[in-house]
């Protein structure tokens, strides 16, 4: 972090734990839960949000002095929608199978609260370089949670990671399956994503007692 001042470096490291967009700011939960049954989908979604949030933050920050306050939500929506259309077309062209798995959730990045939330909270009041760092930081915080949830769901649910069978072959009973281990198919279903995120929040708040709510 030699080229970033201490304050700037904080913009990237804060969202990892102390100000994590999903578990602390409670933003961007919709897409975090629905597509994390595969680790690959989580990684692609994280990269998409990184792209949209990073560039979106810079664009809004550059325009911040000329956007009239009354129509700022509409302007933000147009910027985000354009970037998401680009992401959607790129995915359809280079990773068609994955875009079918992600289906409507790529479009739902538009209404992903993290993006609008960071525009309102940061980009409208700060310069382009800092807004870019803030966007990257928050997108990385989002990516951390998505990858953790995707990791556990895919590992425990289908015994694979990124499609590679790491626990042995369930059909031929090699590896762990030879000892009678079975895949927990329930992990692939959507409710388990909620419970895994609940456990992540539990671990996070036990380690950092200042985050505990009173009620």
């Amino acid at each position, binding site marked *: 972090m030699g080229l970033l001042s201490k304050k700037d470096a904080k913009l990237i490291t804060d969202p990892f734990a102390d100000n994590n967009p999903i578990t602390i700011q409670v933003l961007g939960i*919709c897409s975090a839960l629905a597509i994390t049954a595969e680790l690959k989908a989580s990684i692609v979604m994280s990269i998409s949000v990184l792209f949209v949030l990073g560039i979106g933050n810079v664009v809004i920050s550059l325009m911040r002095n000329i956007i009239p306050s009354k129509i700022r939500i509409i302007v933000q929506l147009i910027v985000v929608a354009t970037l998401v259309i680009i992401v959607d077309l790129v995915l359809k062209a280079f990773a068609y199978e994955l875009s079918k798995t992600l289906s409507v959730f790529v*479009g739902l990045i538009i209404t992903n609260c993290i993006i609008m939330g960071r525009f309102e909270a940061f980009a409208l009041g700060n310069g382009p370089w800092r807004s870019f760092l803030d966007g990257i930081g928050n997108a990385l915080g989002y990516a951390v949670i998505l990858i953790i949830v995707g990791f556990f769901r895919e590992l425990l649910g289908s015994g694979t990671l990124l499609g590679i069978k790491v626990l042995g072959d369930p059909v031929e009973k090699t590896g762990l399956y030879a000892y009678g281990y079975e895949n927990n198919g329930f992990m692939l279903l959507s409710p388990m994503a909620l419970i895994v995120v609940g456990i992540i929040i539990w671990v996070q708040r036990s380690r950092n007692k200042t985050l505990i709510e009173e009620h």
Partner: protein
Amino acid sequence: MEHIELFFKSIFIDNMVFATFLGMCSYLAVSKKVSTAVGLGAAVIFVLAVTVPLNWLLDQYILKEGALVWLGPEYAEYDLSFLSFIMFIATIATMVQLVEIIVEKFSPSLYNSLGIFLPLIAVNCAILGGSLFMQSREIASLGLALNYGIGSGIGWFLAILAIAAIREKIRYSNVPPALRGLGITFIITGLMAIGFMSFGGMLTGGDEEAKEETKEAIVTPKKEINVIEVAEEQKDKKKEVAEITKEIVE
């Protein structure tokens, strides 16, 4: 019949919160009191009921491949569906603004109680999600689109009402400190989602084969009866084989 099926499907089986997790942010933020939850839920039903049919019309006559044929036959190959995101979100933002103006004019008390949440509905994933799912599932008519919009809204309303009621009650329970508030809400929502999965078998009675399968499943639940039936079947088969061999010999 199709309408009733779609209605129940969108409330229980494809519930916006429990099956596809749309609208979670405002769901978690507003569910601390039942009264605000009811207000927001009603607003979401109204906005979905208005925007899904409108977006259906937009998709049908402007955005789909070949939709512009009504302008003239030379437009038959135009496919504007890549503009769906922008056009859907534009209609939603406009309709929400309109709804806000109407509510402010005709019911100032409702307007005050909803506060900031009425304009925030425009960026609620549930609203855009409703329109996008309508497009990806290729809903066939305007009536069905209206049906889907109202059904999805009622499903979301049920979900937020239930979680608000539960959160009010657990305020006096002994939740571990690190799980209080957000953590326990996630886990409870997960358990409710598991509960809603039980509705998945509700609408299998669409065709004759499925009906017969479910009838057999209800009639023979225990393994012991199956064994007896299998034994009887084997006896019958042996009789048939004996008869056939008799015929062959003769």
